[in-house]
């Protein structure tokens, strides 16, 4: 595989991690440690499948127009709705019922994985490839395979660009706007934020719901674009890596563009280098992204830079009456 093709593949694959880490960064900035991201990605995939099935039914039986716009819109919309609902559920338990965030997150993950498999069994596993083409179809039409610039930057489906735009905008909002400052203050010190008149619960709810909806898109991308409509059964692995990526990029979604590329490159490396796939050592090469994460965790804890410190109140449930 040529180096250009490798980078192109890595950029495409990075979208899964990018959606996940952008969503989780927004969530964690508000002080909610949502370990349900793997489950939410699964829910996103299942939602995309629901949307795709509904759209295909509309096309087949009601004479609805079959085109790329609706073909992409339906799965994405349903994925966003399902992701937001999962986020709402997480918030209800952690913010309103004051349950421990790790427990709710892990339960969400279990729930999401189970729901994903069951929904695909009910809906059937085939048929989505009809819409997969719309997702993988190159967004900018006139791309020649010989031009490296066009191949690297213009040869992807719509969701890849969406992920990059969303993460850059999220990064700018978090760091450069008043809204972002408020959000960060809620995550750093909710009691102080509350004292200044900020509605902590509202910020946490909104940030978590938006974050979950974005993370769910990672599942949608994996299912509809990367696999072109073939269901895949280890989505949760990608979800955990997205959670790790958040630490890697220091809770900055815009840095996630680079971080996710690195993760994706490490992930697809064993399939690209010239190792015989029968060689057992390939299983060790496949561990590269996990080693990378561990090394990043260690480096970020040893060097006590400002970057490596997460929101102070991360994972702490806020209850006004507590001191």
């Amino acid at each position, binding site marked *: 595989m040529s180096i250009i093709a490798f980078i192109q593949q890595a950029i495409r694959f990075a979208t899964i991690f990018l959606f996940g880490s952008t969503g989780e960064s927004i969530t964690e900035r508000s002080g909610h440690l949502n370990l349900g991201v793997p489950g939410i990605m699964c829910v996103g995939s299942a939602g995309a499948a629901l949307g795709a099935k509904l759209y295909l039914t509309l096309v087949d039986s009601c004479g609805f127009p079959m085109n790329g716009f609706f073909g992409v819109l339906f799965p994405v919309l349903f994925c966003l709705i399902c992701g937001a609902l999962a986020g709402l559920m997480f918030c209800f338990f952690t913010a309103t019922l004051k349950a421990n965030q790790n427990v709710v997150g*892990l339960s969400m993950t279990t729930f999401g994985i*189970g729901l994903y498999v069951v929904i695909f069994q009910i809906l059937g596993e085939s048929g989505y490839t009809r819409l997969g083409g719309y997702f993988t179809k190159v967004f900018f039409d006139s791309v020649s395979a010989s031009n490296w610039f066009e191949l690297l930057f213009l040869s992807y489906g719509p969701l890849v660009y969406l992920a990059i735009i969303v993460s850059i905008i999220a990064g700018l909002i978090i760091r450069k706007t008043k809204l972002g400052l408020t959000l960060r203050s809620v995550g750093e010190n909710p009691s102080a934020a509350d004292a200044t008149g900020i509605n902590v619960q509202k910020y946490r709810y909104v940030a978590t719901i938006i974050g979950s909806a974005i993370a769910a898109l990672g599942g949608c991308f994996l299912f509809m674009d990367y696999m072109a409509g073939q269901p895949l059964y280890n989505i949760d692995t990608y979800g955990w890596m997205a959670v790790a990526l958040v630490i890697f990029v220091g809770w900055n979604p815009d840095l996630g563009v680079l971080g996710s590329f690195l993760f994706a490159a490490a992930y697809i490396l064993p399939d690209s280098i010239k190792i015989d796939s029968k060689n057992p050592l390939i299983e060790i090469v496949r561990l590269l992204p996990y080693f990378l*994460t561990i090394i990043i965790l260690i480096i970020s804890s040893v060097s006590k830079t400002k970057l490596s410190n997460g929101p102070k109140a991360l994972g702490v449930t806020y209850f006004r009456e507590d001191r």
Partner: protein
Amino acid sequence: MEKAKKTPLLHISRRMDVPRWEKIVIRVATFVGAFVLCALICSLFKWGTFFNFFQDLFGSLVSKSASKPLRSLINTLEEMALLLGISLALLPAFKMKFWNLGAEGQVLMGGFMAAMLSKFLPNSMPTALATVIMLVAAVAGGAVWSLLPAVFKAYFNTNETLFTLMMNYVAMGVITCFIRVWNPEHGTLDSLSTGMLPQIGGYSYVINIIVVTVLVFAMYGYLKYTKHGFELSVVGASRNTAIYAGINTWSVIIRTAVLSGALCGLVGWLIVAGADQSVSSGSAGGRGFTGVLIAWLGNFNPFYMALIAFFVAFVTRGSSSFATEFLGGNSSFPKITIALFFFAVLVGEFFLNYKVHINRKEKKQALAGKEAK
């Protein structure tokens, strides 16, 4: 003009002294509610199966074969024992606020070490000796897998949640690699050649249940009555306090995390030698994560954890037989019911710890009038 202040309809306050009978009533209501919720969801997936779910749930305790009347009950208890064993292993680490999410990997490494030794130990060796050697190796395997995150946690305060989580995948990768070397045609290692745990009274798994029962009491005593148990709870409450009290926090963190990993390794040995007789990268089967939830929802109390673990095993087996009967044998269906069960327990915990007040308008006005006088 001043804006009228809105009072929220509901507000909550923390409850301090809940009477014992009320605790029991709330908990019983929680569990009943959890089962009803699961049954409702089941009837959503397949209309009109509300009562069938309960039938399957309780049916999973009753054996159909006349020769082994206790088999179904023992199967449920065995599943409970494995889950409880893992959550007990996590308990000391959690009390120290060391969030060990790596039980999955530690269990796998324990099981793998046991299976590997069984492959290489000579057949002429007495079974008892082989069993002991495999047990030691399994404990060591689990301990090593948690040693690494523990050392970095102790010296650099590295985030152990994600570190241990990543170690899960490393364990799976290592095991897959060795399986591909030794047994490339299959996804698992060969069945054990030696060191299997014997059956008792014609039933397998009984030893697993006994070992975990002993572990419940041992862990209760360790946490409540020993110096170690005290030290780790101080470190968990405040590391600075522990340092000022003269506790060597570094050694406490490493010691406790290694104990946690070692016990996970022990459970791995139980899974391989006492139940599966073989190992694959899926041997832990998500129990590592369920164990985390059981420890938490059991309020870190070994006996209450045992109750929760029993219900989890009960719901798992009941809903998996429901899925076989009505949903075409979907092996992931129990995951949904288990998660719903946990969510229901979380709601119950809320009502145990908080009181909901309804702010009625009249009451407010009456109060305001009183104050004015």
